[in-house]
């Protein structure tokens, strides 16, 4: 019977929403195994993060607040996470799949000499332990049930596969852990973060996503679907082809090797429906495809397919939705 540690990312003094999937998963595992659930947050200048982290219903919050953690590097954060986790008897360490956790948790796994599973879809418990995990492989064309050996297990969980832990009024107990990090010795330094600024919702949080592909022919095509997105309060996504062409920023790529999303409504415009793209959006509740090729594979998974040229259909769609809204 060990404890479950959930490593949470934060931004602007708050836990990142996506991370709450891992919190929910972690609380459920702890209930199943009789261990304690514990959020771990790391950074520099953490007063409001501490407040935010203590309201998601975990038994505890571990906090590392150190100037050495001011600019994120996986190298320094691995040391911090390891120090914090050593003070608990952890049997499972979780985080929601993200660029942050993908490069941090494997390093941590080595420090803890623990096996790791990435991007899990479900976790089962048995005999006081997390015993089984399911996850997607081969661009989502297979699901595997896996077991992991060892005293400690490390896992990232897919954000769309677990609900978000709700905010609660009672505050969890917070334990501060101090660390010593020699940043010089790490030979790693964050120089600059170029944020892709957008007033639209983030892909991970959006209830509606309008995505564009190579069929949009260029950045001007994206301007057309952005009008639709703004009318719907939707996020904009893209296929790899559109990102590779430089029409939209990299972090809009949806798919096996980009972001995995599952909104209530996903509108794919000028996207053929390659397996790598579909892997990232096939769990959306309702899928609409607009494509001028009636045989495009995307129609095989779309609830509603419209065979049309986007340049004509999307502006019409905007007008038509305005009428019914």
């Amino acid at each position, binding site marked *: 019977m060990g404890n479950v540690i959930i490593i949470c990312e934060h931004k602007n003094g708050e836990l990142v929403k996506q991370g709450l999937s891992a919190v929910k998963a972690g609380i459920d595992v702890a209930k199943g195994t009789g261990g304690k659930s514990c959020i771990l947050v790391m950074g520099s200048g953490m007063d409001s993060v501490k407040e935010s982290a203590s309201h998601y219903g975990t038994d505890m919050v571990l906090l590392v607040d150190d100037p050495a953690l001011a600019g994120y*590097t*996986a190298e320094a954060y691995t040391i911090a996470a390891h120090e914090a986790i050593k003070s608990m008897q952890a049997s499972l360490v979780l985080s929601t799949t993200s*660029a942050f956790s*993908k*490069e941090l948790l*494997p*390093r*941590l*796994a*080595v420090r803890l000499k623990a*096996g*790791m*599973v*990435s*991007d899990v879809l479900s976790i089962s418990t048995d005999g006081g332990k997390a015993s089984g995990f399911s996850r997607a*492989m*081969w*661009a*989502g*064309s*297979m*699901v*595997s*049930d*896996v*077991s992991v*050996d060892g005293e400690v297990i490390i896992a990232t969980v897919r954000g769309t596969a677990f609900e978000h832990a709700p905010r609660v009024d009672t505050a969890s107990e917070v334990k501060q852990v101090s660390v010593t990090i020699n940043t010089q010795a790490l*030979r*790693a*330094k*964050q*120089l*600059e*973060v*170029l944020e892709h600024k957008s007033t639209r919702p983030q892909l991970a949080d959006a209830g*509606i996503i309008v995505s564009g592909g190579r069929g949009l022919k260029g950045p001007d095509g994206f301007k057309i679907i952005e009008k639709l997105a703004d009318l719907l309060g939707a996020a904009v996504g893209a296929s790899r082809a559109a*990102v*590779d062409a430089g029409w939209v920023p*990299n*972090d809009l*790529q949806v798919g*096996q*090797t980009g*972001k995995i999303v599952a909104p209530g*409504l996903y509108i794919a415009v000028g996207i053929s429906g390659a*397996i*790598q793209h579909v892997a990232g959006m096939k769990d959306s*509740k*309702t899928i*609409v495809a607009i494509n001028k090729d*009636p045989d495009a594979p995307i*129609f095989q998974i*779309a609830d*509603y*397919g*419209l065979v049309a040229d986007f340049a004509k259909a999307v502006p019409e*769609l905007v007008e038509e*939705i305005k*009428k019914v*809204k």
Partner: protein
Amino acid sequence: MKILVTIKRVSDPEAKLKIRPDGTGIQTEGVKFVVNPFDEIAVEEALRIKEKHTGEVVVVSIGDKVVTEQIRAALAMGVDRGIFVNYTGSYDSYDVAGILAKVVEQEQPDIIILGKQAVDDDMGQAGFMLAEMLGYPQAAFASKVEISDDKKTAKVTREIDGGLETKEVGLPCIITADLRLNTPRYASLPNIMKAKQKPVKEVTVDALGAVVKPHVTIKKLTEPPKRKGGVKVESVQDLVGKLKNEAKVL
């Protein structure tokens, strides 16, 4: 400058896959195998660094004899030599990192480039595990790599959630390649011929002194339920009507 690139043999991303009767793997008969696309990008980047800063590019692949096909493919792109780690058992990313750490000990490269993930298991762990085992810094999900003139540091642009980050890492370091790093070259016919003569060293896990003991074991594979296609709508009006009244999403 010595650059080590890791390459995994994976099923072609376009291939239609079927589950093996024992349920723990895929049927390989009739399936085309390729260099993991992210590793191909890693090879290309190594060649470009060599072209600019001189040096040697070495590839390593772990698996049974057939992975030498992928080593030859990398040699045909211009890589100088290959290391084939002959291992036929099962392994996880931790084991891969453990084996690679031993290869790094022997080869002492300045830069090690891996793919950000293998597109068959989609784990995305080996590079970062290797970095931690070696105590090296890492630049994950690279979309641009610049080596300093004194060859002591690399400035790497990385694809992260919400945008791009630049990070400076001291050499020796680990880099993992993302999609936008470059477009891999095709092997020319003369280079394909030349590749046949290039050295490929075969080693075993035991000879390297690595211990393989997978933590992660696949118990069962299943095909996920297929999403059923719906209907084709006749017009934009028809679509909006269905979204409003049937799907109730507007």
